[in-house]
C-alpha cells in the first residue's frame, strides 16, 4: 500500500529550534531555503526523529547522542509530525526526549490514541525501517557525494549501501581468521613442545606396558603364595596360642609345687596328733582359769565346750580367748600405768607437804622468843586493856594539872594587868569583884603574883612532867605489846597450819602405801598373764603348723595331678615351633620381595601414566589442531558463501537498478549528449588486501555511441544527475508506503534547467507525491515546481531559534 505523505510538522526544543515552529507541509513540493546554520537540516532531522526516535548521525554514524538533539536552551525536544494517507486518515506522531531520560512516543490515528507498539505501527505504516528510510527516502548531500566523488572503492561502498548489500560486505570483513590462526599457532607450539619432550620416550611405552604386565603377573603369584602361607601360619598360630596357654599353666603349677615343697621343708614333720591334743587341753584349762580370774566366765565356758567339738574350732576359740586375754593384758598395763602416775602424784604432794611443814616449824622457832616477851610484859603490866586504862587515868591527871597551870597563868596575867593600870592611873576596879583598887595594893598584888609563880606554879609543872613521862612509858609498852600480839596471832596460825599439814601428810603416806601394794599385785597378775600368753601362743603355733602341713600336703597332691594332665595335653597339641619359625621367615622374605616388586611396578606405572598422558595430550592437541584447521577452512568457506550471496543479490539488484536509473536519468537530464547509463562490475583489491567488487558507472555518448566512465569524463553537474538518477531509482525499487522523498542539498552544481527538470521528474516518478528539499541555493525560489508548491525561507533568529517565513506559495 502506497499513500502516506507529510502534512505538518511542529518542532520545539529540537537542535536549532528553541521556540515552537510549525510548518505546513501539505504541498507537493516544499523548498527550505536558507544560509548555513539556519536549521534546514534540523527540520529534516526532526522529521527523522519523529518517525524513528533517532537520526542517522546518532544510530549509525555515532557522531551524536540523543541528548545532543535537545536545544541548548531547552530541557526537552518535542517533535510532532502529521501524516495523511490517500483515504484521508490522519496519523499524528508525538515524540518527546527529555534530558537524561528515555524518549517517549505517542501515535494518534484520526485523533484517537493508539495503544499497541507505536514504533512497530509507524514502521508498518511507512513500510520502512530506519535503514531503508536513510537509504531510499532521505537523500543527503554526502550520500550523493559519496556516489560521485572519491576513490572507486569508496564509491562502490556507497553503492553497496544504497543496494542494501553493504551488510554482507561488512559481515564478510568482520570474519577475522586471525583469532583462529593464533589458536592454531598456539596449539602447534604446544604440540611441538610435547613432541620434543616425549618424542624419544614414546617408543618405549609399549615395552614398558609389557614389562608392567609381567611384573603384575609375578606380583599376583607372589601374593597368592603369601596368602597360602598365611593360611598355614594361621593354623600354626592357633596351635601355638593353645600350646603357650597350656605351657603357661604348667609353669604356674610347677612353680606352686616348688613353693609348697619349700614351705614343707620349713615345717616340722612327725608331730603327734594325740600329744598335741593333750597339750592343748592343758593350755585350754590354764586359759579358762585365767579368763575366770578376769571374770570372763562366758568366754571360759565357750572355750571348754569347743574342746569337745574339734581341733579347728578349739584353735579358733582359743585364738579368740587369747585376744580377750591380750586385751585384759593391755587393760592391766594401762591400770598399772595409771596407778604409777597416781603414785608419782601422791609422792610429789607428800614431798611438798613435808617441805611446807619444815618451813612452818622454822618460822615457829623464830616466833617463840617474841611469845615469851609478850608473856613477860603481860605478867608485869597486865593485858592491853589494863594498859589502856592506866594511860587514860594519866591523861586525866595531866589535864587537871594543865587546867590548874592555865588558871594560875590567868591570875598572874590579871594581877599584872591590874598592877599595870594602877601604875599608870593610880586606881582601878577589881576585874573579879569590880571593887576599887588603889596603888597601895600594888605590893600586895606583886607578892601574891610571886607566890603563885614560885610555889603553886612550879610544883604543878613538875607533877605534869612526871605524868607525861609515865604516860609515854605506858604508851611505848602498849605499842610493843600490840606488835607482839600480832606475832602471837601468826604463831597461833602457824601452829594450826602445822597440825593440819601433819594430818594431810599422814593421809598421803597412807595412799602411797595402798597404791604401792596395788601396783605390786597388778604387776604380779600381769607377769602371770604374759607367761600364760607366751606359752599358749607357742602351743597354738605348733598346732597351726600341724594344720598347715596337712593342708599343704593335700594341695601338693592336687597340683601334681594337674601337672600330669597338662603335660599329657601338651603332647596332644603337637605344635612344631621350627616349622612356625620357618614359615614366618618365608613370609617376611616374600613380603620383602613383594615390596620391591611393588616399588618397581609403581615406578613403571608412573612412567607409563606419564607417557600415556603425553600421548593423550598429543592426541588431544592433534585433534584440536585438526578441528581448528577445519574450522578455519569452514570460515573461509563462510566468507566465500557471503561473497557468493552478495554477488547473486548484487546482480539481481543491478539489473533492476540500471533499468530504473536510465528511466530517471532521461527525465532529469534534459540535454542530448548522453543517452543512457550502465553499471559494470569489476574485481579490485582493497587496502586491507582482500578482493571486492568495484562498480564502474558508464554513460553512452550520443556523438559516437561510446561508453564513457562517468567519474572521469563527466562534469560535476552531470555526475550529480547520474547519482540522483541512481538514488531515485532505488526509491522506485523500494516497496514502501511513504510517498515523500527528502533531499538535503542534492544538486549544488546543477544548472537551473536541470533543477527544474529534477523537480518535475521527481514528482512524475510513480509513487512520489511529495518532495521536500533543503538547499542554500536561492535560485530555487524562482524555479517552477509541479503541483502545489511552497518555499520557506529560513534565517538566523538568535536564542529562540531560526525564523521561518513563507516566501512563495503556489496553489494548484
Amino acid at each position: 500500500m502506497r499513500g502516506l505523505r507529510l502534512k505538518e510538522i511542529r518542532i520545539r526544543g529540537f537542535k536549532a529550534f528553541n521556540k515552537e515552529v510549525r510548518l505546513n507541509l501539505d504541498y507537493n513540493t516544499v523548498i527550505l531555503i536558507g544560509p548555513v546554520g539556519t536549521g534546514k537540516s534540523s527540520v529534516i532531522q526532526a522529521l527523522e526523529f519523529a518517525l524513528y526516535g533517532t537520526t542517522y548521525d546518532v544510530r549509525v554514524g555515532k557522531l551524536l547522542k540523543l541528548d545532543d538533539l535537545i536545544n541548548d536552551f531547552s530541557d526537552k525536544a518535542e517533535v510532532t509530525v502529521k501524516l495523511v494517507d490517500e483515504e484521508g486518515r490522519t496519523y499524528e506522531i508525538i515524540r518527546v526526549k527529555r534530558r537524561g531520560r528515555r524518549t517517549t512516543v505517542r501515535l494518534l490515528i484520526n485523533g484517537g490514541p493508539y495503544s499497541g507498539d507505536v514504533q512497530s505501527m509507524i514502521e508498518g505504516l511507512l513500510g520502512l525501517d530506519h535503514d531503508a528510510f536513510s537509504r531510499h527516502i532521505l537523500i543527503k548531500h554526502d550520500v550523493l557525494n559519496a556516489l560521485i566523488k572519491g576513490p572507486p572503492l569508496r564509491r562502490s561502498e556507497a553503492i553497496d549501501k544504497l543496494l542494501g548489500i553493504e551488510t554482507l560486505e561488512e559481515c564478510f570483513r568482520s570474519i577475522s581468521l586471525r583469532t583462529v590462526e593464533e589458536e592454531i599457532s598456539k596449539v602447534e607450539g604446544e604440540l611441538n613442545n610435547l613432541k620434543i619432550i616425549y618424542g624419544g620416550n614414546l617408543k618405549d611405552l609399549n615395552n614398558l606396558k609389557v614389562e608392567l604386565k609381567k611384573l603384575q603377573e609375578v606380583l599376583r603369584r607372589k601374593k597368592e603364595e603369601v596368602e597360602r602361607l598365611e593360611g598355614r601360619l594361621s593354623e600354626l598360630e592357633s596351635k601355638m596360642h593353645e600350646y603357650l596357654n597350656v605351657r603357661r599353666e604348667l609353669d604356674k603349677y610347677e612353680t606352686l609345687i616348688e613353693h609348697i615343697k619349700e614351705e614343707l621343708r620349713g615345717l616340722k614333720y612327725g608331730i603327734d596328733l594325740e600329744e598335741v591334743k593333750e597339750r592343748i587341753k592343758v593350755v585350754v584349762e590354764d586359759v579358762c582359769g585365767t579368763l575366770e580370774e578376769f571374770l570372763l566366765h562366758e568366754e571360759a565356758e565357750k572355750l571348754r565346750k569347743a574342746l569337745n567339738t574339734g581341733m579347728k574350732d578349739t584353735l579358733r576359740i582359743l585364738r579368740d580367748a587369747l585376744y580377750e586375754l591380750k586385751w585384759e593384758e593391755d587393760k592391766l598395763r594401762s591400770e598399772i600405768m595409771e596407778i604409777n602416775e597416781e603414785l608419782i602424784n601422791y609422792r610429789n604432794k607428800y614431798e611438798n607437804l613435808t617441805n611446807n611443814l619444815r618451813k612452818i616449824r622454822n618460822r615457829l622457832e623464830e616466833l617463840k622468843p617474841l611469845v615469851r616477851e609478850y608473856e613477860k610484859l603481860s605478867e608485869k603490866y597486865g593485858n592491853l586493856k589494863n594498859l589502856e586504862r592506866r594511860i587514860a587515868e594519866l591523861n586525866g591527871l595531866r589535864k587537871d594539872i594543865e587546867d590548874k597551870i592555865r588558871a594560875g597563868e590567868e591570875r598572874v596575867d590579871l594581877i599584872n594587868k591590874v598592877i599595870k593600870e594602877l601604875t599608870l592611873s593610880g586606881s582601878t576596879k577589881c576585874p573579879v569583884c569590880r571593887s576599887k583598887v588603889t596603888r597601895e595594893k600594888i605590893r600586895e598584888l606583886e607578892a601574891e603574883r610571886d607566890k603563885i609563880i614560885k610555889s603553886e606554879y612550879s610544883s604543878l609543872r613538875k607533877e605534869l612532867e612526871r605524868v607525861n613521862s609515865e604516860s609515854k612509858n605506858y604508851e611505848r609498852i602498849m605499842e610493843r605489846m600490840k606488835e607482839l600480839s600480832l606475832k602471837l596471832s601468826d604463831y597461833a596460825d602457824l601452829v594450826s597450819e602445822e597440825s593440819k599439814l601433819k594430818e594431810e601428810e599422814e593421809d598421803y603416806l597412807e595412799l602411797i602405801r595402798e597404791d604401792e601394794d596395788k601396783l605390786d599385785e597388778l604387776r604380779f597378775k600381769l607377769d602371770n598373764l604374759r607367761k600364760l600368753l607366751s606359752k599358749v601362743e607357742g602351743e597354738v603355733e605348733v598346732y597351726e603348723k600341724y594344720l598347715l602341713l596337712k593342708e599343704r600336703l593335700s594341695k601338693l597332691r592336687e597340683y601334681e595331678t594337674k601337672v600330669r594332665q597338662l603335660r599329657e595335653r601338651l603332647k596332644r597339641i603337637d605344635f612344631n615351633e621350627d616349622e612356625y619359625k620357618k614359615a614366618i621367615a618365608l613370609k617376611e622374605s616374600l613380603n620383602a620381595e613383594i615390596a620391591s616388586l611393588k616399588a618397581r611396578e609403581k615406578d613403571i606405572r608412573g612412567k607409563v601414566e606419564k607417557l600415556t598422558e603425553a600421548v593423550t595430550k598429543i592426541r588431544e592437541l592433534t585433534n584440536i589442531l585438526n578441528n581448528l584447521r577445519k574450522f578455519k577452512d569452514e570460515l573461509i568457506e563462510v566468507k566465500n558463501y557471503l561473497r557468493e550471496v552478495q554477488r547473486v543479490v548484487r546482480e539481481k539488484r543491478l539489473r533492476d537498478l540500471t533499468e530504473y536509473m536510465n528511466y530517471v536519468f532521461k527525465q532529469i537530464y534534459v540535454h542530448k549528449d548522453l543517452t543512457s547509463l550502465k553499471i559494470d562490475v569489476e574485481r579490485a583489491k582493497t587496502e586491507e588486501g582482500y578482493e571486492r567488487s568495484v562498480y564502474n558507472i558508464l554513460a553512452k555518448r550520443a556523438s559516437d555511441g561510446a561508453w564513457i566512465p562517468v567519474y572521469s569524463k563527466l562534469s560535476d553537474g552531470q555526475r550529480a544527475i547520474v547519482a540522483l538518477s541512481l538514488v531515485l531509482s532505488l526509491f522506485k525499487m523500494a516497496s514502501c508506503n511513504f510517498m515523500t522523498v527528502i533531499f538535503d542539498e542534492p544538486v549544488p552544481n546543477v544548472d537551473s534547467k536541470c533543477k527544474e527538470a529534477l523537480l518535475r521528474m521527481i514528482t512524475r516518478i510513480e509513487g512520489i507525491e511529495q518532495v521536500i528539499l533543503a538547499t542554500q541555493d536561492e535560485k530555487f525560489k524562482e524555479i517552477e515546481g509541479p503541483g502545489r508548491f511552497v518555499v520557506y525561507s529560513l534565517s538566523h533568529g538568535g536564542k529562540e531559534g531560526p525564523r521561518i517565513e513563507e516566501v512563495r506559495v503556489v496553489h494548484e
Partner: protein
Amino acid sequence: MELDGVVTQFLKAKGKVGELALEIYKAFLKEGRKGVDRVIERKLREIVSEGAKVKGNKNKGV
C-alpha cells in the same frame, strides 16, 4: 524478497557450513563485529573442550 530472506535461503542450502555462515550473519546483524567474534570464540572454545573430552576418555583406559 528482502535481503535477509535471500541470504537465509541461500545459506541454508549450503549444508553445515552454510548454517555456520547463517549463525555468523545473524550475530553480525544483532551485534556487529563483536557478535561475529563471539561466535568464533565460542566455536574455538567448543573445539578445545572437545579435545579435553578425548583426553578424559583416554585416561580411563590407562
